[in-house]
């Protein structure tokens, strides 16, 4: 196992380089000359050549890539073409922080509600409620994010003014009780994006927990627990739940992919200053360096996280032999 992990870790930089080179060449393939954009009215060839050199845009694509990597590893992703005077880093990282907060909360909600729903569904196996729960969750997954949000805004913000129309104000607000005790409560801006981001995710988690729990229910120790007279709820919580949780580590990755992809639409529609909204604006203004940096950073996080999930899974469940065909 240690050998496998080391092998994967050695592959990591190779994968990351391949991913970034692919992204880089695609971004450089885009139309328009960033140099003439940066130069504005000036058409003096010397000025153009200077800008080209400054931005690392001279030489072959490989030389350009080498320069880009050299800067990127030091956290310098160049300068935005759309927002003059701002470095890509200055633009990206605050937005990434917003998206990360939102995504993390969404991840917790997906698992926090998905697991009990799956367990409930397994518990109700054999009744009409089990297929109903799963069908409803599948239906929610089939609803595109972009369809969910406008009715939510209309109902909660426009019609009833319960929640803000959009924007972002951190995860928590502080409530002061008698001016002394601080109670953190979720910020009202959080609810609509959270609903939109989590609805498609429940089905995956709940179904996996359900299938595992159904298998666990046939185990001998469950029969023993029932035979010794434990109430059904206690059987579920003490014996079935812990043994049904192992495989859900494998869907953390999938759930996160769903949340990241959902964030593009949620943030765009709700005006949340995150990475998804930024990508939308960058696509509209053809700000390639921002799109490039965003994609590469997200890809890096994905690669690293997939590896982490695999290692953690093998660690908590020694039966999993690393290097075997992945669970489909």
């Amino acid at each position, binding site marked *: 196992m240690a050998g496998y992990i080391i092998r994967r870790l050695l592959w990591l930089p190779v994968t990351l380089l391949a991913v970034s080179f*692919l*992204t880089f060449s695609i971004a450089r393939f885009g139309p328009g000359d960033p140099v003439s954009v940066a130069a504005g009215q000036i058409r003096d060839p010397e000025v153009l050549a200077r800008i080209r050199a400054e931005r690392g845009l001279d030489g072959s694509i490989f030389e350009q890539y080498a320069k880009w990597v050299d800067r990127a590893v030091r956290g310098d992703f160049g300068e935005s073409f759309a927002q003059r005077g701002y470095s890509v880093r200055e633009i990206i990282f605050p937005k990434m922080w917003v998206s990360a907060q939102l995504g993390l909360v969404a991840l917790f909600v997906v698992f926090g509600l998905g697991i009990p729903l799956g367990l409930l569904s397994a518990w109700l196996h054999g009744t009409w409620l089990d297929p109903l729960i799963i069908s409803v969750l599948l239906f929610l*997954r089939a609803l595109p994010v972009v369809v969910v949000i406008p009715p939510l805004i209309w109902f909660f913000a426009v019609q009833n003014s319960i929640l803000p129309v959009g924007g972002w104000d951190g995860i928590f607000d502080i409530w002061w009780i008698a001016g002394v005790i601080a109670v953190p409560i979720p910020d009202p801006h959080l609810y609509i994006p959270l609903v939109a981001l989590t609805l498609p995710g429940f089905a995956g988690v709940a179904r996996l927990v359900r299938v595992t729990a159904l298998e666990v229910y046939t185990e001998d120790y469950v029969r023993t627990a029932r035979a010794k007279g434990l109430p059904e709820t206690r059987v579920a919580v003490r014996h079935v739940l812990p043994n049904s949780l192992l495989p859900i580590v494998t869907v953390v990755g999938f759930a996160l992919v769903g949340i990241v992809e959902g964030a*593009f639409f949620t943030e765009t529609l709700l005006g949340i200053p995150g990475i998804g909204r930024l990508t939308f604006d960058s*696509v509209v203004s053809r700000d390639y360096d921002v799109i490039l940096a965003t994609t590469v950073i997200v890809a890096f996080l994905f690669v690293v996280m997939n590896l982490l999930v695999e290692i953690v899974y093998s660690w908590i469940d020694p039966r999993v032999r690393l290097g075997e065909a992945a669970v489909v």
Partner: protein
Amino acid sequence: MSVAAGQYTAEAEAVEQYERQAARNPWLLLWGRLRKKRLAMLSLAIVLVIYGAGIAAPLLAPYSYTEQNLERGLEGPSADHWLGTDRLGRDMLSRVLYSARTTLIVTVAVVLSGTLILGNFLGLLAGYRGGWIDSLIMRVGDVFASLPGLPMLILLNATLLPRVLQWVGWVEDHTPISGLSSSGTASYFTVFGALALFSWVGTARLIRAQVLQLRERDFILAAQATGGSTWHIIWRHLMPNVSFLIILEVSAVLGSVAGSEILLTWFGVGVQPPNPSFGAMLFEGSGARTFQAHPHLLLVPAAVVTSLMFAFALLGDALNDAVRGR
């Protein structure tokens, strides 16, 4: 794909005859299992109706999808326009039918090229040949699988689309071909190319895992011993044994590709106007104020898209069960 023999009852004779048939034609067995699932049949019907509407759009559509009538914009459903009109007074029903056509074209093209040709072929090759070919294909697959799909697709389409349009413009200037860029056809190619590039990995991995087991079997050894070439063994001996997996993949990929096209177009990097797409229709209806004043702009495409996605999900589950003998 044998079924455990049932007990002899009055119906056993019929069952046995059916199984004999099924042993000769496993697809019949699969269809038999699927046919008993009501939900699966309903889903299949929904998919077929929407795809059928796409095929027959030119016959069914009461108006052209580009025909504008600015005096009658944003109307609700009426006798003239069954599903109402959009901001430009275009008939929503016709737009929906032609959007189904777009979904049909993109999904079928991606499934044919990405799943059936690239994924299937590379999976078979990697699994059967092993060695450096296997490593190469799978490592490239790892890179694609580790890329975040949507941002990559957005980047790819955002950069490719203008390039493709340039090329198409050049082709139009230098050859008698014309009307490609004005009709927006070029955008179909970028959407389809980008989606195909990302859809093959899952299929290839699945097929490869299956082939790894199959190639140890005696019939493959026999085929090798009698001098069967790699291509012969792949096509004649391995392909038929993975075809059930391919069906599963096709149903899964159809759904996810349909969803991706819609989201990409919503984002503005997919199919370009004036070509109709559910993504563009959803985008037009997705403002909160728009939804308040003209809910049909969102609800009409949303209903079709959600039914299609839900049907794909249920159908995929049922197929999965049927292939696994349930």
